[in-house]
């Protein structure tokens, strides 16, 4: 270089260079969490003052001591067993005996261990009645182990029935008027064996009989306890199509189901981990959002109950493959439009997928979404699993709880290096479990805290985790929102892998009102699943939909809970039933649980 660079230029850009080099270091310091020196009582008082709620674990006080256990599988998978057997902790809420108090069902995943049905004793405590009621001892040798469950009144007799999906033989239990359960799996026409981590109830054709959709994870032909070979892993970490098939089981109305999956266009074999149903195109039929591990997510439009049409790419959700592990939906802006939250993996410095918050930008004729998770502040979780929306402080806006943490093994000894090594490889290498490096007790995205975001009046979400919860890190999986003590407050249940369940009692500051609506279909399915409820108050409105399972391996309470802020007057409640009927109710009393029958007055 013959040109002599002026000294001032060298000094100027040398200084600028040093400043730029220091930016990540300075930013990193800013990001370190602040350690609170407050006592729990002070922390609670601050949280109530600042955000209007506080979550405390109360397992011991309420008599819940359930512990999830993972399965042992074929010995050829032992070297990566924590990777494979990393799911199965689930929670589903239901008032199984119609006593007006929410009960909940928990699954474990070890042969010989029992699932639990915690009956709400209406005195603040719970009792595990699963074994007495015949739905506990279902993880028996040779039948596979439980991965999750969903409730719905599939025979419209007024009592919620239970479906348990497994890595193994799926189970359907008929609720005998809240006094016991009858296993009708054989006569119901269920698949003989599945490897599933998701299922929802929904009435796809609005015939009044609730149908069942089961998501496939591993291929149904695989028996994880007795492998034919070790070619069971995903063929790709982005576009894997070698997962299990999904099953759409049409309710025949006589206690049996018919497999109509192929006929209705749901033949995908991606690795499904979560499913959500919602009528996105306002044609009166519930569409499906399917979150897939190792691939892109899928959006199926329900064509008038006749068949499904996949529009992932057209709707913009089907381009960037991530690790879809959750689907939850809410009207986060109180504008009647539903956003979809999909959890993925965020491991700082290694894998920054970020979670997605898909917000609708199109119309009923042209369904389109945009991922606004970054803008709204809910992008970064961890190795995220289940999440649920719910108004935790009754201020009239939907907040968000997110479960995090994959494998908490030996501390400061991570499997991530080996994981990134193998996942960068070709399909012929990665799809064979034998080629995977041994985990040797190491952690992978372990010891992560769950996240709580409060909705700042529909604009953005604020991360209030450090303030509103004292929960230590678990490998959390499923989350359910439920009013456990009929206080007009949403409590949270978190199912943790290889650990105790967390019952989080929510304390909400005084002043905000609420209303709860419980539906009963007559022409529509009895559970009211698929009904859209819009509450109008104080010049605003919020919509919610009655769900037959949402999140990751979870189900919230069936009744719909609305926070109202300090408003004490509701303008009206609009119910759009799956049957097509619209019901408008005025003069609804606040701070009360209302039961509403399709076409009738409220009680």
């Amino acid at each position, binding site marked *: 270089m013959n040109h002599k660079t002026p000294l001032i230029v060298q000094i100027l850009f040398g200084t600028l260079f040093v400043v730029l080099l220091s930016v990540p270091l300075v930013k990193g310091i800013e990001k370190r969490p602040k350690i609170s020196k407050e006592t729990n009582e002070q922390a609670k008082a601050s949280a109530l003052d600042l955000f209007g709620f506080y979550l405390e674990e109360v397992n011991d006080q309420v008599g819940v001591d359930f512990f999830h256990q993972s399965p042992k599988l074929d010995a050829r998978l032992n070297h990566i067993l924590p990777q494979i057997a990393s799911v199965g902790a689930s929670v589903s809420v239901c008032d199984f005996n119609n006593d007006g108090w929410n009960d909940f069902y928990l699954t474990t995943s070890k042969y010989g261990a029992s699932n639990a049905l915690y009956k709400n004793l209406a005195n603040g405590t719970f009792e595990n009645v699963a074994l007495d009621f015949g739905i506990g001892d279902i993880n028996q040798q040779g039948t596979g182990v439980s991965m999750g469950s969903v409730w719905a009144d599939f025979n419209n007799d007024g009592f919620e029935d239970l479906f348990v999906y497994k890595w193994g033989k799926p189970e359907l239990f008929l609720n005998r008027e809240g006094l016991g359960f009858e296993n009708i799996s054989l006569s119901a026409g269920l698949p003989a064996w599945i490897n599933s981590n998701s299922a929802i109830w929904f009435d796809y054709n609005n015939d009044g009989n609730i149908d069942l959709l089961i998501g496939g994870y591993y291929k149904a032909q695989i028996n994880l306890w007795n492998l034919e070979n070790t070619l069971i892993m995903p063929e790709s970490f982005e576009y894997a199509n070698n997962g299990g098939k999904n099953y759409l089981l049409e309710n025949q109305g006589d206690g049996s189901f018919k497999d109509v999956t192929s006929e209705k266009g749901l033949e995908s074999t991606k690795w499904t981990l979560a499913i959500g149903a919602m009528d996105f195109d306002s044609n009166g039929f519930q569409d499906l959002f399917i979150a897939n591990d190792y691939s892109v997510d899928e959006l199926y439009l329900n064509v008038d109950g006749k068949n499904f049409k996949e529009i992932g790419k057209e709707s913009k959700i089907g381009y960037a493959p991530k690790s879809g592990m959750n689907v939850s939906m809410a009207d986060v802006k109180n504008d009647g439009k539903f956003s979809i939250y999909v959890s993925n993996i965020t491991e700082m410095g290694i894998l920054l997928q970020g979670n997605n918050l898909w917000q609708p930008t199109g119309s009923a004729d042209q369904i389109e979404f945009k991922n606004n998770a970054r803008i709204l502040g809910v992008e970064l979780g961890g190795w995220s699993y289940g999440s649920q929306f719910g108004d935790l402080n009754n201020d009239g806006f939907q907040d968000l709880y997110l479960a995090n943490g994959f494998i908490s093994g030996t501390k400061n000894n991570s499997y991530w290096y080996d994981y990134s090594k193998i996942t960068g*490889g070709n*399909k012929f290498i990665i799809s064979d479990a034998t080629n995977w490096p041994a985990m040797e007790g190491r952690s992978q995205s372990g010891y992560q805290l769950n996240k709580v975001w409060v909705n700042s009046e529909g604009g953005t979400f604020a991360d209030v985790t450090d303030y509103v919860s004292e929960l230590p890190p678990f490998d959390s999986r499923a989350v359910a929102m439920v009013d456990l003590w009929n206080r007009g407050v949403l409590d949270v249940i978190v199912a943790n892998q290889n650990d105790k369940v967390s019952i989080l009692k929510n304390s909400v500051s005084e002043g905000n009102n609420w209303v709860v609506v419980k539906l009963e279909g007559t022409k529509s399915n009895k559970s009211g699943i698929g009904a859209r409820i819009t509450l109008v108050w104080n010049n605003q409105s919020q919509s919610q939909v009655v769900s037959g399972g949402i999140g990751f391996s979870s189900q919230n309470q069936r009744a719909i809970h609305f926070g109202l802020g300090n408003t004490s007057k509701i303008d009206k409640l609009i119910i759009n039933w799956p049957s097509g009927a619209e019901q408008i109710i005025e003069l609804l009393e606040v701070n009360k649980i209302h039961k509403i029958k399709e076409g009738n007055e409220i009680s």
Partner: protein
Amino acid sequence: MKSADKAIAQEKLPVIKRVGGFLSRYMPQLFITLILLAGHLSFGILEGYETVLITVGVSILIDLFVGRLYTGKWKNPVSGYISGISVSILIRSTLYWPYALTAAISILSKYVLRYKGRHIWNPSNFGISWMLFTAPLFVAGLSVQWGNNLLPMLVIWMLGMVIVYRAKRFHVTITYVISFTIFAFIRSLITQDPFLAEIAPLTGPMYQLFIFFMITDPPTNVRSKKGQMLVVFIVALVEFILRLNQFVYAPFYALTIVGPIAKFIDLKYFSPKS
């Protein structure tokens, strides 16, 4: 030949030859652009084009502006373009500023970190390594694998080999690949992990970019052919050591460590006296 005569002669060349000349001259740049476009259109490697615009824009602008102040000449934007593209492919962040910062650090390193009037680090290698090492809260490396499919891998490898052959850098790439494979075998003996797991990264896109664009970069290489082969062997050796210590981004760090030392020695002890 005077420049006017040159222009006339150029005009007289058949179009096909002129196009061929252009393609030949800008083959690496076209190749990396092709990888980016093909990767995005087929496998969605970018969540949007914004990050490419940011990295390429920042790289070219800084290269032009700072290059003018440092050298008194306007730089060919191609160099900034290729650095910008490399950064946009190899860095992942949920934010925009890390893309701009990585591009800026990469290009500035070319002007600030010099010895005997030459830059000693591959610009994008320096920028990416710095960010991966110091900013794990904000950036990660490439996590996309072209669908883990065999076909895209073979196509990129074949095209890449042709390009490095034409650029007279085939010996660099092949020395590194052989060295990596041998060291992968030794690692598998030490760690008891399957050999296929150790060799797996080489089949992914991060390495395709690394072996065709970074380790072959002429300005930051030593001059002799044997020297170049020795340097990439040492890069593979340092990477081997880093991998045994579980550094996820071992190849970038290895090149960042070995590259400038080799260049320094080359310039200090083997530089022809002018």
